C-alpha cells in the first residue's frame, strides 16, 4: 500500500501565512546534521578552511537548507536540543512553566519549527512523539493564554505568575493572545461607547 504524502503543514491559514514574517522566520531553525558522504567544494558550510566537506562531519544548518539534503539522504538529521527529551519531559511535567520564547526556530517559533521538523522527511516518516508532545503542550498552554488575554485591561502591572507566563510565549501563542486581547478590548470599547452616547 503506497502511503499518501502528508499534506505540507501550514496551508490555508486564514491569516495568510505566505506574507507572515513569523512563518518565514520559523524556517531558519538551526538543525544539527551529519554529512553522509564526501561533498567536494563545500567546506565553507562547516566554517573552516577545509576545501571539501568530509563524510561524518557534524554541522548546524538552517532548516530550509538542510531539509532538501535530508530528503536526498545527503545529510542525517539529528533532533535539536530544544526538541530533545529534556524539553519534552519538561513540557509533559508542566507545560505552563516552560519558557518557549528562546527555544526552537527564529523569533520564538517553537511550534512552527517543531512541525517543520516532525514533517521534515515530507511524509515518508512523521516524528509522532514530537507531534504528540507539541500538541498536548499547545492544548494545555492555550487555555492559559486565552484566560490571560481576556484580563489584560484589568491587570495593572507586570507581576506574578501570569506575567511570567506571558513573557515566555511562542509566536503562535502570542498571536492567539493578541487576537483574544483585541476582541476583549473591542467589546469593552463598544459597550462603553454606547454608555457615552446615552448620557449625551
Amino acid at each position: 500500500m503506497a502511503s499518501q504524502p502528508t499534506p505540507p503543514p501550514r496551508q490555508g491559514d486564514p491569516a495568510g501565512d505566505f506574507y507572515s514574517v513569523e512563518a518565514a522566520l520559523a524556517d531558519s531553525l538551526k538543525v544539527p546534521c551529519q554529512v553522509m558522504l564526501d561533498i567536494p567544494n563545500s567546506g565553507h558550510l562547516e566554517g573552516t578552511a577545509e576545501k571539501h566537506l568530509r563524510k561524518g562531519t557534524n554541522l548546524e544548518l538552517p532548516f530550509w537548507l538542510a531539509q532538501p539534503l535530508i530528503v536526498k539522504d545527503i545529510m542525517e538529521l539529528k533532533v535539536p536540543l530544544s526538541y530533545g527529551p529534556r524539553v519534552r519531559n519538561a513540557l509533559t511535567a508542566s507545560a505552563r512553566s516552560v519558557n518557549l520564547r528562546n527555544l526552537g526556530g527564529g523569533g520564538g517559533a517553537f511550534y512552527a519549527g517543531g512541525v517543520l521538523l516532525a514533517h521534515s522527511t515530507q511524509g515518508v516518516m512523521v516524528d509522532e512523539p514530537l507531534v504528540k508532545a507539541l500538541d498536548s503542550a499547545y492544548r494545555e498552554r492555550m487555555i492559559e493564554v486565552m484566560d490571560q488575554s481576556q484580563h489584560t485591561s484589568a491587570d495593572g502591572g507586570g507581576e506574578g505568575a501570569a506575567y511570567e507566563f506571558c513573557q515566555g510565549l511562542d509566536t503562535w501563542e502570542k498571536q492567539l493572545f493578541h487576537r483574544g486581547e483585541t476582541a476583549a478590548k473591542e467589546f469593552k470599547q463598544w459597550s462603553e461607547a454606547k454608555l457615552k452616547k446615552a448620557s449625551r
Partner: protein
Amino acid sequence: MALSHRRRWGLTPQDLDFANQEREIEIVPMVRLPLTSSNDGPLAPQFGPFNPPQKAKVPLWFALQMKKKGKCRIVVPGWLSVASLEETLREETSSDDFSPLPRDYVELSNTLLHLASDDFPLHSSSDKVKILLKDIREARQAKIRVGAGALNPVHLAMPHLSSMEILELRPTFSTAFQRLRELNPEAERHEAIAGMWLEKEGEARRRAELGEFERGDAQEGMEEEY
C-alpha cells in the same frame, strides 16, 4: 489583499449592533397612523397601522427613532425582566449547558438599557437588570473557558451561544483551531475512521482488511487522546 487583518477575523461589535437594528420589537405607539410604506419602491417596508393603545411590531431602529421623538413606548421583552433573568441566572449557574437566551441578547439588552432605560417596568428597573445581565455574562464566560479546554482540531459545539459571544471568541478559537490542525493534520481522518468503527462496523472491518486505514493504525495511540 485589500481586506484589513481585522476584517478577516470577523465582524466587529459595531457591525453586529448595526445588523441587529433590523430586529423586530414590540412598541406601544402614542400616535395614530394608518398602514404606511416608505418611498423606497414596491418592496419598501411597511409600518403600522398604529392604533394606540394596541401594540405594534416595528424594526428596532424605527422604534428607537419614534422613542426619541416621544411617539412610542418600547415594550421590554419578557426575558429581560428581573424575574426571568433571575431564573436564567439560576439555570446558568446550576447547569453545565448555556441557557437558551435569544441569540442577540447582548446587543438588544445593551441598546435598550442605554437608549430606553425608562421603559423598563418599575418592578424590574434597568439597574437591577444590568447587574443580573453582568452576572449571567460572567457565568457564561466561565463556561466558555471550560469549553476552550475541550477544543480539538475536528469540531466544537456550544449550543445557545449568543452572537456577541461568538464574535468575541471567533479570533481566538479560529486561530487555535487552525494551529491544532497544523500540529496534527491527520486528526480529521482519524476522527472519521473512529466514527466508522462505531457506526458501520462491518464496512470499517472490510476497509481495514483492505488496508485502507494503514496509516491510521500506525498512529492509533494518538487517536485515543481525543
